[in-house]
């Protein structure tokens, strides 16, 4: 099967650079899948789980905020953070989720737009972490 080159780059260094079979990513307009020889494509990425398949094995990553570019049979993700599901500390993510929920409730009460947006973003990240870790364990 033809493969596509997947690259995930974050500010703290590249996370993956590998040939894979298929990539599924959380685009802003919904989840999308990319196979080998995809047409040139540019999309923004929201916080969520990215998965790719290689040697019949699927791996999951949590990614947050960025964009992806497909060209010349290569897909590049530029995201602010990316973590393998297997490396995620679920307890910590759970605690972060609870904290974010509390802050969100507080911000909603006070009608504080900025803090509300921040708490929402933190909650999304925590949820994406938990999901990526769960998917990895299945």
């Amino acid at each position, binding site marked *: 099967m033809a493969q596509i080159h997947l690259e995930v780059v974050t500010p703290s260094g590249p996370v993956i650079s590998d040939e894979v079979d298929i990539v599924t990513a959380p685009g802003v307009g919904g989840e999308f899948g990319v196979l080998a020889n995809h*047409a040139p494509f540019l999309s923004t990425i929201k916080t969520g789980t990215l998965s790719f398949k290689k040697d019949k094995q699927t791996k999951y990553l949590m990614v947050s905020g960025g964009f992806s570019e497909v060209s010349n049979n290569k897909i590049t993700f530029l995201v602010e953070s990316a973590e393998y599901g297997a490396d995620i500390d679920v307890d910590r993510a759970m605690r972060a989720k609870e904290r974010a929920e509390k802050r969100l409730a507080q911000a909603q009460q006070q009608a504080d737009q900025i803090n509300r947006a921040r708490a929402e973003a933190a909650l999304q990240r925590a949820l994406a972490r938990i999901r990526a870790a769960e998917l990895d364990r299945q």
Partner: protein
Amino acid sequence: MPGLKDVKTKIEGVSKTSQITKAMNMVASAKLRGAQEKMETFRPYAEKFAEAMRDLSGGMEGSNLELMEVREVKAVEIVVVTSDRGLCGSFNSNITTTAEKLMQKYEAEGKKVTFVSVGKKAAQAFRRSGKLRSQYNDIMGTFQMFNAREISQDITHQFVSGESDQVDLVYGKFHSVAVQRPEVEELLPIKPVEGGEEAAEAKEGVTGAYIYEPEPEEIMEVLLPLYLNVQVYHAMVEVSASEHAARMTAMDNATNACKDMIDELTQLYNKARQAAITGELMDIVGGAEALKG
């Protein structure tokens, strides 16, 4: 002629200082390696990002993206990035002087100036001016992307709400271990990259038209705040590497100065000791002569 004991105490004191400066030099060189590594790991991200910005921003002139909005400049915000700690030569004061000159220039043009400080030294420099709008202290040691995000969200909020019409960034750029210079960059409004359109066209010629999802303008709406994060983070990485390099040089100079001082003091000590011996001899000889007589 100073007393023998005084000179000896002074030599001991200076040699202890030189031990400290030598240790600080070694700590700085270890930290510089860490900071340079951080710079290296960040580079691919920054480069790819700049490339994408170049491709996309070409056609964005005249669009109504709020971060690219050019208005008449009445208020300028200057973001000053320095280190948290001193003892690194003139590194921090070079940055704050550059920022101050910039302020004077803007004020002469009748523009209102406010400061945002990143790093304690910048806060100390502008605290008393009454123009410091917000400060970020004690983050230069272990900063991460989310620190940069917090800062850029802060300045974006000011810009979008019309409190500032232009945002400048002043930081210490790392040229080499020996050279770090203050650098001024314009952060907001974000300007379309020059030659972007041609670059995008050339690229399209090679790979065919891109499919954008969502529309390019909406992509830019997401990308611009991220780009701002990248720029702030970049300045912080540069400053952190520069700080350690500057401290290395400063501590090396201090250690050398200590060595020179010890040499001088030792000479003084020997001279004083010799003088004392000569004096004692004179006394003995004088005494013996007196007994003979």
